[in-house]
């Protein structure tokens, strides 16, 4: 009798624990994905704003340092947005991020270098270098999105 009670109770507890941990982990993954998308969206917003200024469409040159600092800061820790196995759920992150970790690290480094160089040019008000360095930033976005982001559904 005691034996039956013990097995039933322990199974129940183990089952509950398993359910609790999986849902907890799943929730955490989803939250990371949401955060990641928030960061990426903000970078996109800064990029759109910078493009308008650099292309000479608008005259908000005073804001350029703020935009450049923001994207540079986000790129500093960009890999941390992609903890292992966060390619499940509502995300376009591809498994290649983890299966080709070296290459992912390399494009992340490029992103860091390109954004820092652009920010330095902005801070030094080196207008001659703006266009080329901004293009390098866009190239680094493109290089990563080419191999590590699922093609967009329109």
């Amino acid at each position, binding site marked *: 009798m005691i034996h039956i009670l013990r097995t039933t109770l322990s199974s129940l507890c183990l089952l509950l624990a398993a359910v609790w941990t999986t849902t907890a982990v799943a929730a955490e993954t989803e939250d990371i994905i949401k955060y*990641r*998308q928030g960061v*990426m*969206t903000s*970078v*996109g*917003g*800064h*990029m*759109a*704003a910078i*493009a308008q200024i650099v*292309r000479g469409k608008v005259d908000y040159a005073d804001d350029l340092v703020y935009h450049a600092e923001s994207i540079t800061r986000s790129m500093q820790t960009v890999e941390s947005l992609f903890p292992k196995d966060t390619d499940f759920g*509502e*995300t*376009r*992150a591809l498994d290649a991020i983890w299966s080709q970790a070296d290459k992912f690290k390399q494009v992340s480094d490029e992103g860091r270098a390109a954004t820092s160089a652009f920010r330095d040019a902005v801070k030094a008000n080196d207008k001659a270098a703006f266009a080329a360095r901004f*293009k390098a930033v*866009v*190239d680094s*976005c*493109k*290089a990563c*999105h*080419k191999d590590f*982001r*699922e*093609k*967009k*559904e*329109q």
Partner: protein
Amino acid sequence: MPQGFPRKERTVVVIRGLPRGLILLCVILAGAAPVARGAALLERGEYLVHAGGCTNCHTDEQGVYLAGGRALSTPFGIFYAPNITPHRRHGIGGWTDAEFLRAMKAGLAPDGDNYYPAFPYVAYAGMRREDVLAVKAYLDSIPPVAQPNRPHQLPWYLRFRPGLWLWKWRYLSLPAPGTIRGPDPVRQRGAYLVNALAHCGECHTPRDWFGGLIDARRHAGTVTGPDGDVVPNITPDRKTGIGKWSSDDLVYYLQNGLTPDGDSAGGPMAEVIDNVTSRLTKPDLQAIVRYVLSLPPIENSLRSSQSKTERDPYEY
């Protein structure tokens, strides 16, 4: 006035000399295009190789320039782009002008075999003869690479190449793509670049059961593009196409890969921007944009029905 002509005479000389100079300039300009030789011909050929998207498929990701090897997954099988360096055994070394023209415009190998239309000869059929020959001159000038070609992976029923005669009879037809009517030379140049060279429609147009482009849906996008990708609608429909983009934004996108909302191109279009459009001159990009924005808008949403329609525009 110790030297030169008296004032009056000098003016006369300038005026007399002007038309002569203009005529000479016109002769040089007119002559330059069709009979470019030497360095100018090679330069033009190289530009056309990029405009025609040759490097995009014929150079593998880490591979040697134009030595082939890149895989193209399609619903019909996997095609491997061949070596087009002038290597005599593995490439296209030793081909005559006539053989090269026949390959590019009729999809025929020197031995008479049909090429599969993964090689976009349906588009290249619209290329001007002198442009094809400039491409050949350039390809003959690059270093030959001894890289053997990989055979395509196709189901048994598609391995019978003479069957392609029927396909060609249906789809390789006149009028040649890239030539449009109308008074606007810029738009004409755009049509030539889009349809005969860069062959945008080969990915951006849905295909029928036999792999031919559905002409009525040209450039309207497809959910079954190469490598199973969704390829966007690039007709100027305001809701589902690119009708809301300004010409300037489109030129900028083709140069850099940044969309007006700050997103960057990814996937295959990132490669096309790197290998093809970013290498074109600004006037050529403006011509492409003028032409594309003049296309009839086609409403074609590419969201799959089960996908969430309330999607955020950015998903990473």
